[in-house]
C-alpha cells in the first residue's frame, strides 16, 4: 500500500540529491533511500525519469518527480512544517532567483574552472569568482539566505562551497577567497556546522577520491 510513502532514488556523490536529503531532513520526513549505480541505472530509475534518466527522483504516494529545485518546492508545499520558502512573494522570488543563479550561472563557470587548462582555465576561474562574489548580494544583512535560519536557497546552494573546497585539493586554483568573499565564507561555515546539514554531507575523503577520478578522467 502506497500510503504516504516517500522514496528517494539517489547517488551518494550528487549535490542535487543532497539538496533533497537536506530538505527532507529539515521537514523531518522519513524516506526510503535507494542508492543508484549510475553506470548501470535501474529499471526503476529509467521508468520514473524517462526524460533525463537522472537522480534525484522523489517518489511520493507512487508518483515520481525529477529535478532537484522543483522537488524542493514540492516538499515545501506538501509538508508545511519548518517552511523552506519565506512568506512574502518578494522574498520567495529572491530565494528562487539565487537558487537558479547558482545552477544556471555559477555551476557552469565553476565546472569550467576545474576542468579546463591554461588560459581558458584562468578565464573560467575569473568568471567563477565573479559569480561567487555576486552571491554575497543575496546575503546582505543576513546570516543565511533564509535570514536567521536556513531556508530554500541555503539548501539549494550550500553544497557548492563544500564541493569547491574539495576540488581545490585536486586542481590548484582558488575560487572562494575568505578575504574577498567574507560573507560567503562565513555563511558557508555556519551552514555546514548545522548538525542535520553536517551529518548528511558525503564523507570528505570519499568525495575527494571521486572528484579526483572525475576531474582527471
Amino acid at each position: 500500500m502506497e500510503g504516504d510513502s516517500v522514496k528517494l532514488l539517489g547517488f551518494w556523490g550528487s549535490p542535487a540529491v543532497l539538496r533533497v536529503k537536506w530538505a527532507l531532513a529539515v521537514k523531518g520526513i522519513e524516506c526510503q533511500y535507494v542508492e543508484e549505480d549510475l553506470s548501470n541505472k535501474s529499471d526503476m530509475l529509467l521508468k520514473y525519469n524517462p526524460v533525463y534518466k537522472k537522480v534525484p527522483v522523489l517518489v511520493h504516494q507512487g508518483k515520481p518527480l525529477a529535478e532537484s529545485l522543483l522537488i524542493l518546492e514540492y516538499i515545501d508545499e506538501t509538508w508545511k512544517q519548518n517552511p523552506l520558502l519565506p512568506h512574502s512573494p518578494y522574498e520567495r522570488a529572491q530565494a528562487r532567483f539565487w537558487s537558479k543563479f547558482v545552477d544556471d550561472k555559477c555551476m557552469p563557470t565553476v565546472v569550467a574552472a576545474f576542468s579546463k587548462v591554461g588560459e581558458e582555465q584562468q578565464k573560467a576561474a575569473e568568471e567563477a569568482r565573479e559569480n561567487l562574489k555576486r552571491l554575497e548580494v543575496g546575503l546582505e544583512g543576513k546570516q543565511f539566505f533564509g535570514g536567521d535560519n536556513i531556508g530554500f536557497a541555503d539548501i539549494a546552494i550550500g553544497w557548492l562551497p563544500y564541493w569547491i573546497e574539495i576540488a581545490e585539493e585536486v586542481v590548484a586554483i582558488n575560487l572562494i577567497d575568505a578575504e574577498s568573499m567574507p560573507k560567503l565564507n562565513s555563511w558557508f561555515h555556519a551552514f555546514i556546522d548545522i548538525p542535520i546539514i553536517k551529518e548528511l554531507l558525503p564523507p570528505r575523503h570519499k568525495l575527494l577520491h571521486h572528484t579526483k577520478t572525475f576531474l582527471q578522467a
Partner: protein
Amino acid sequence: MAEKKNSNGEVKLLGAWPSPFVIRARIALNIKSVEYDFIEETFGKRSQLLLKSNPVNKQIPVLIHGHKCIAESMIIVQYIHEAWSSSGPPILPSLPYDRAIARFWLTYIDDKWFPPLKSIVLGLDTEPIEEKLEKVREGLVLLEDAFNKISKGKDFFGGDQIGYLDIGFGSFLAWLKTVEVTEGVSLVHETTTPALAKWLQKFCAHDAVKDVLPPIDKLIAFSKMLRANVDLVINPK
C-alpha cells in the same frame, strides 16, 4: 506594437517586444489585470535602469513593483501569481504535484527544447539545421504527450484557464512560427501534433495573449537583424 498601459507608476516591466521571456511576464500581468508601464529596452544596449534593477544578470525582463525588483521570467510569473493572488484566476495549479509537473516541463522547454530553436533563429552553425529541427520536433512529440496527460481533455495545460505551463511554452509560439516560415518547415501541425495545434490556436486567441504576441512579419524582419548582429546577442553591451 508594445502598448503602454498607464498606471500610477507602481508596476513597471523592463523588456523588449520580441523577447519570449518578456512576453511571459506580460501575459501573467494581463491575467491578473495589473496595469503597468512597459519600458522598452534598446536591442544591444543596456539602460541604466536595467543595470540598476538587475545588476546580477543584467537581463530583461525585470518587474519593478514599488521598490522591489524581480528578475527571471518564470520567477516573475510566480511572483505575479502570489502578489496578486486576490485578483483574477490563479496562474499556478493548486495541487503540489500538478505544480511540480508544470515546473518540470517548463524546465525541459527552457533547457532542452528552446536551445536548438534559438540556434536556428540566430543562424548559428553549431550543427546542421536538419539536426536542430529534428530536436525541436522530438521535443514537440514529448510536449504533445505531456499536454494530453496534463490538460485532462481541457483546452489548456492549466485546464479551463491558461496557466504557468501555457505561458511558459506559449511565449515561444511566435518564434516557432517564424522558424516555420523562414525555413519552410512544419513543426506544430494537426497531423503530427494535433493536440498542440488545437491548443496553439486557442492560446494565441486568448485575451491575455493576443496583444502581446508579436506579428510574424515583424519578427521575421527582426530575426534577420539578429543574425546580422549575433555578437551583440551573445555579448550585449
